[in-house]
């Protein structure tokens, strides 16, 4: 990794990489600046397209002498320990106003070792309106050597007042073939499996990596798709929704459990508690806080997993609709061709569209705190009612 440039893992983003490398070089040109650099950036792109990777690669370039990525700086940025880099990455549902206030305060510090101070907010879309407003002043006119880099899925996720203060770099969705090539090159995955994973993950690099390397994740996705094909009646749909929720729970706990345990062990070690010994009462509140943080992360983790399931269902019904309308595009779920064909001929396109609408409703309801089970039930019940018409 350290031998390659930090941009190597970004695939299919030539244009965006050219922009930010040019900007980083321009930042060191002083009087001869061409205006390619500015103080506030917004990197947008669909989940998994490498927004935060680009942000850190850009940060590395800015923090390196002359704006050309330097391996030593890259290592510090990778470990998030570079003294002139401040990062706000939330694993909870929202970014709190206090976190942003602290970051805004630190924006006023001058850089210590590099020429610039770089502030990165991953998931800037997770800020509420009130929280976003805290940023405005600093975004518009930060101290001379401070650069803001925000990441969000799309410009529409941010307030107009933020959008007008940043320069936008858009990432495109990479081609599944490009993602598959990365999986083969980097992780040594079998090419056929890599392509299927890349297609089913809809070019989400992290998801594709998981599907390609984790057999359990593949099995969970397979069950999700089979459940969606199997919905026939309302009672069965309600029971299937429960199963889908269980799948989402397995999915998110597979991701978080190991980490939770590791963090707890690390925390106990740093507090000086022997493994297996009782925790002294004075330290319990610290441990409690860690557990609360983990619980919040689990809430977001479950929601993300349910949303992934909804995305899988969305892709599936898109494929069905493509077949029904004879659009002739490449299906996402090519491996389930027979089932898709059967569903496409048995049901009218209106039914498919109704389900697609229900999934869109569901994805809006999830962040509005509607219980995930109820959200999934509404989708599957719609499918059951529509398919029997």
């Amino acid at each position, binding site marked *: 990794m350290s031998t390659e440039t930090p941009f190597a893992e970004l695939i299919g983003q030539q244009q965006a990489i050219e922009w930010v490398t040019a900007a980083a070089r321009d930042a060191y040109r002083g009087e001869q600046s061409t205006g390619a650099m500015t103080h506030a950036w917004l990197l947008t792109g669909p989940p998994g397209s490498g927004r935060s990777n680009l942000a850190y690669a850009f940060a590395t370039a800015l923090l390196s002498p002359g704006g050309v990525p330097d391996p030593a700086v890259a290592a510090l940025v990778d470990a998030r320990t570079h003294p002139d880099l401040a990062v706000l990455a939330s694993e909870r549902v929202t970014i709190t106003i206090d976190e942003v206030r602290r970051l805004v305060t630190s924006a006023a510090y001058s850089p210590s070792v590099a020429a610039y101070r770089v502030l990165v907010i991953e998931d800037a879309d997770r800020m509420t309106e009130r929280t976003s407003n805290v940023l405005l002043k600093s975004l518009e006119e930060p101290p001379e050597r401070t650069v803001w880099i925000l990441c969000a899925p799309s410009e529409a996720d941010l307030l107009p007042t933020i959008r007008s203060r940043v320069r936008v770099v858009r990432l495109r969705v990479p081609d599944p073939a490009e993602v598959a090539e990365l999986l083969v090159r980097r992780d040594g995955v079998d090419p056929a499996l890599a392509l299927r994973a890349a297609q089913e993950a809809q070019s989400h690099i992290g998801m594709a990596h998981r599907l390609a390397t984790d057999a359990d994740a593949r099995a969970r996705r397979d069950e999700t798709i089979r459940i969606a094909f199997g919905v026939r009646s*309302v009672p*069965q749909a*309600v029971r299937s929704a429960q199963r889908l929720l269980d799948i989402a729970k397995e999915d998110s706990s597979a991701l978080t459990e190991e980490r939770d345990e590791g963090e707890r062990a690390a925390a106990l070690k740093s507090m000086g508690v022997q493994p297996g010994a009782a925790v002294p009462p004075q330290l319990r509140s610290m441990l409690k806080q860690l557990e609360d943080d983990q619980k919040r992360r689990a809430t977001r983790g479950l929601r993300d997993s349910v949303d992934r399931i909804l995305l899988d269902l969305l892709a599936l019904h898109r494929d069905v609709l493509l077949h029904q309308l004879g659009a002739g595009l490449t299906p996402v779920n090519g491996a389930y061709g027979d089932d898709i064909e059967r569903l496409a001929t048995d049901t009218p396109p209106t039914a498919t569209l109704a389900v697609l609408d229900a999934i869109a409703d569901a994805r809006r309801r999830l962040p509005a705190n*509607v219980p995930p089970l109820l959200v999934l039930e*509404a989708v599957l019940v719609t499918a059951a*009612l529509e398919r029997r018409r």
Partner: protein
Amino acid sequence: MAARAGSTRATAAKAAGPRIPVLVWDEVRPAPVVLVSGPEDLLAERATRRLREVLAAADPSLEVSDLDASNAAPGDLSTLASPSLFGEPRLIRVTAVERLTDGFLAEAMRYLEAPADDTTLVLRHSGGTRGKRLLDAVRGGLGGGVEVACAELKRDADRSAFAAAEFRAARKRISPGALRVLVSAFQADLAELASACQQLIRDTAGDVTEATVETYYAGRVETNAFAVADAALAGRRGDALVLLRHAIATGADPVPIVAAIASKVRTMARIADAHGSSARVASEYGLAPWQVDRARRDLEGWQSDGVGRAILLVAETDERVKSGARDPEYAVERLVAFLAGRGEG
């Protein structure tokens, strides 16, 4: 493990040792230490007030001071308890002993060893394990205290006895029927029941009868989310809407009402196509047999598509009450009316 065995022995020793008298709130009498324990604040407050009245009647120069144990600094208690120039009797009321500071604990333990003369220390502990060492010491007889137990009045019989005592204390007669109506109208909060009793005692002449209670509290119904859901699913549209309005008027939030409806509709949908005895269906779907019986009763008159549409509307309503809608109450009303119409309306 050794520590646990030790504490068991200690408990046994304590149980055998001297125990202090446990009183109910209206029997409270002065003692060097009065432990007022239990979650019912109204009774605790009354016990403390009564104690103060008794002490003040004995010596009007009584000096009353208050201390919050949750942010007491070391020395606060000794300052309040140290003898004054003219030797007035003192009443020290300590609140929040259930969140006491370590400093207060140490000081209180020292105080129990040698309580000050002419001083009454009231410790208000509303439950929980914090400060257990202090409670055990007082209950073990250290300091010569008494305990006033203010248990929560959960059962109707207890609440009814409480209300009857209120009227007896005021030498006012209330008919048994009136008492029943009164107690059932104020289920949630003992303080509300107490103030209703006081209002009837002060504002009415003669005996309190059912008619009197009707005049003052007619039409007041305490209800909850499940009562609304039950009425709606039983098809009693009018009742359900009235109950919903009552629930909202008495402070119920639309969100738990929708959650209650969602859980009932979900159970109905899950077992809608299940056949066989309720015990078998219950074990197959991980429910209790009574839940299956209930859901089957609720399902009468429903088509399975209707249940499906009900779920869609529940999801929509849930979103509306949590965000989005201008009038969450209307959203719930619409849902209740739809359910009462068996999903066909």
